[in-house]
């Protein structure tokens, strides 16, 4: 139970081995400390994991969480999160997902669900207000993500895996409708537990502490999002696909396994091409006012179109200029239930290994006719596909090519080539879940794609990366779409890039790092809410909890540090924040010595500002944030990390 509104007050605990369920203890003190979403999940896992625990252990928990804003009617708040130990990286992963499941889970009366154990036979976990049932999923096993969901009650919010999850492809994902909890292999953990699907249904709604104020705020918030240049114009008009062209212009479009930042045929795989010749309609997650999703046709079916990551990584990065193929592959990969980023990254790495004569996996740059078959082989772990199903890090351990295996902590990088956006490179390296652009702090949005802060200078990047990492962590904890955090960037700085004032402000940006770092360290300073980040107001009005900008930054900082120390306990080494040598030692432009990621230089500033010693939060830092773990556990983890 809870005294706060906005929450349902219960977290479900399910044991698949015993086929039992009950309530997971979660108090208001826990809610105040973590808010919800991925921060809540990190806290739950931090207090459960042990150093020996692995992704496919019976007691590796799947933690599905919503935020206090999920189901409150605030714009873009249908999100939920799935966290677990990743089979791809061996450390925590967390996937923020749209779709309908988060809302349905709350309507069934739960803020989250903790799932342990393994079922002996395929199971569909059905959660309703009255009961939780373990339904036989034998008939669903083997079905694609789309088929599976079609065969579950249509009124229910759903989660489902496809063949890739069943076959434990290390980057298998979980689908809710057409949206994906994509990264880190949460689908493989589902598959290992024989958990084919989870559905939720109910009629409950969270109570709201101050309905009038929240309604008023929602009107303003919707207007803010719909008039902001990024969320109101660019994303609805072109979707994330609209980034291909600006990425080309700014030399950050990953090309030929990240050996370059520009692709001659970029226009053929661009957002403009998608919009003009392939778009059927826009689509949106429940409660979304941005509507960035693209619907396209494959054969006679209208399906989810590719996002920027898929366009870039199955386009420029493998030297393919056929957008129709990308649309089709995107659909096939979704149906098989795989993360298209890691899948495409592994394919590109395989292509380079083949080109260098190391091993021929049957896939080659610029040759695309057999890729549909390769995706199927990966999902079913057949033939050479079995190697690619383990991701590029493991492939490099077996075949070599570590310096051009494009991953961080075992997770393949997103489509942004960081040698021309060095702060983004720092983000990739320090991101807790590995090579993810969002957990990285999405620095490209200030390094060219939204604002034009000098993308090659290391100055100020550590401070900005920390701020955005913490802010996005908090926004995710609210149950909000990460795109809502873009509104923090003042519209005029984006809309008027050539104005003298804009240029002066952006030129000064890298040099205000020390000031920004003060805020990063002393998160309790901004004891007020700001209109550009309405999440603080929304949490206050929805839950009745005291919530300001300081609270958001504190929750974000707590989450980022909790995830980090959890990773250290799981065995992450002190030197794990790194990038492949291609990105830190080879120049993207041989004539410009700045076009590589000066990672070590930025990391020093980053760690100092975080209160970390060589990538590990100090005991003092953990205590100051209220992260409560045993000193003996910390000391042991530290010793292992340094070994």
């Amino acid at each position: 139970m809870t005294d706060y509104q906005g929450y349902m007050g219960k977290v479900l605990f399910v044991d698949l081995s015993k086929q039992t369920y009950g309530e997971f203890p979660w108090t208001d003190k826990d809610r105040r400390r973590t808010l919800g979403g991925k921060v809540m999940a990190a806290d739950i896992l931090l207090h459960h994991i042990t150093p020996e625990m692995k992704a496919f252990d019976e007691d590796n928990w799947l933690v599905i969480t919503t935020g206090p804003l999920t189901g409150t009617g605030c714009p873009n708040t249908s999100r939920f999160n799935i966290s677990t130990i990743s089979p791809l990286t061996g450390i925590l992963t967390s996937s923020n997902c749209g779709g309908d499941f988060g809302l349905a889970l709350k309507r069934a009366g739960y803020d989250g669900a903790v799932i342990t154990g393994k079922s002996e036979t395929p199971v569909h976990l059905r959660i309703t207000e009255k009961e939780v049932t373990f339904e036989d999923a034998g008939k669903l096993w083997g079905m694609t993500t789309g088929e599976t969901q079609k065969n579950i009650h249509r009124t229910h919010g759903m989660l489902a895996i496809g063949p890739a999850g069943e076959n434990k492809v290390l980057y298998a994902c979980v689908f809710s409708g057409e949206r994906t909890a994509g990264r880190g292999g949460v689908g493989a953990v589902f598959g290992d537990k024989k958990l084919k699907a989870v559905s939720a249904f109910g009629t409950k709604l969270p109570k709201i502490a101050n309905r009038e104020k929240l309604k008023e705020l929602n009107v303003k918030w919707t207007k803010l999002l719909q008039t902001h240049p990024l969320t109101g114009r660019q994303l609805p008009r072109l979707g994330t696909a609209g980034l291909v062209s600006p990425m080309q212009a700014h030399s950050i479009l990953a090309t030929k396994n990240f050996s370059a930042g520009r692709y001659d045929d970029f226009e053929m795989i661009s957002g403009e091409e998608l919009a003009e010749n392939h778009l059927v309609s826009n689509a949106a997650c429940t409660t979304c006012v941005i509507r960035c999703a693209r619907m396209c046709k494959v054969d006679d079916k209208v399906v989810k179109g590719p996002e920027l990551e898929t366009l870039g990584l199955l386009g420029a990065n493998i030297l393919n200029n056929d957008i129709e193929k990308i649309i089709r592959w995107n659909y096939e990969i979704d149906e098989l239930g795989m993360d298209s980023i890691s899948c495409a990254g592994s394919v590109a790495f395989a292509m380079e290994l083949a080109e260098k004569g190391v091993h021929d996996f049957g896939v080659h740059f610029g040759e695309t006719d057999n890729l549909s078959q390769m995706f199927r082989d990966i999902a079913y772990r057949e033939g050479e596909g079995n190697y690619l199903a383990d991701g590029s890090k493991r492939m490099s351990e077996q075949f070599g090519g570590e310096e051009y295996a494009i991953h961080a902590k075992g997770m393949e990088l997103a489509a942004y080539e960081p040698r021309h956006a060095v702060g983004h490179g720092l983000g990739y390296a320090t991101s807790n879940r590995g090579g993810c652009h969002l957990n990285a702090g999405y620095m490209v949005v200030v390094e060219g794609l939204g604002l034009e802060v000098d993308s090659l200078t290391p100055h100020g990047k550590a401070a900005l990366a920390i701020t955005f990492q913490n802010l996005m962590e908090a926004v995710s904890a609210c149950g909000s779409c990460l795109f809502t955090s873009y509104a923090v960037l003042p519209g005029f700085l984006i809309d008027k890039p050539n104005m003298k004032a804009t240029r002066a402000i952006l030129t000064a940006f890298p040099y205000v790092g020390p000031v920004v770092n003060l805020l990063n360290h002393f998160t309790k300073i901004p004891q007020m809410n700001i209109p550009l980040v309405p999440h603080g107001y929304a949490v206050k009005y929805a839950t009745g909890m005291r919530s300001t900008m300081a609270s958001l930054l504190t929750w974000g900082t707590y989450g980022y540090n909790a995830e980090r120390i959890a990773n250290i306990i799981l065995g992450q080494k002190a030197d794990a924040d790194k990038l492949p040598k291609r990105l830190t030692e080879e120049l993207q432009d041989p004539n410009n010595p700045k076009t590589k990621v000066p990672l070590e230089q930025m990391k020093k500033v980053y760690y100092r500002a975080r209160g970390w010693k060589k990538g590990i939060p100090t005991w003092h830092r953990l205590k100051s944030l209220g992260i409560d773990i045993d000193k003996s556990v910390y000391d042991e983890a530290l010793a292992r990390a340094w070994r």
Partner: protein
Amino acid sequence: MAKVTVKLFGVYRMDTHLAKAEIEAQKLDELLEILHTQIEQKAKSEGTAAQIKDLSFKDATIFINGERCRKRRQKLGDGDEIWILSPASGG
């Protein structure tokens, strides 16, 4: 006069329905004026009012041969390729 290729991207392209144009001009500001006129004429002939608000492209992010250009008086050379991107491209 330099003969250059102009390409429009982002919201500019969606609004003007113009992807590419071949234009002769000496300097960038002159080129942008010609482009402005061409877009207006195209909209008139097609019976569609151009929805584009910033027809002077003063807020555009412009690249010449792949290099960011902020000088409106920039001299153009034969065969140059000009990319005109709308501001705000994050996502």
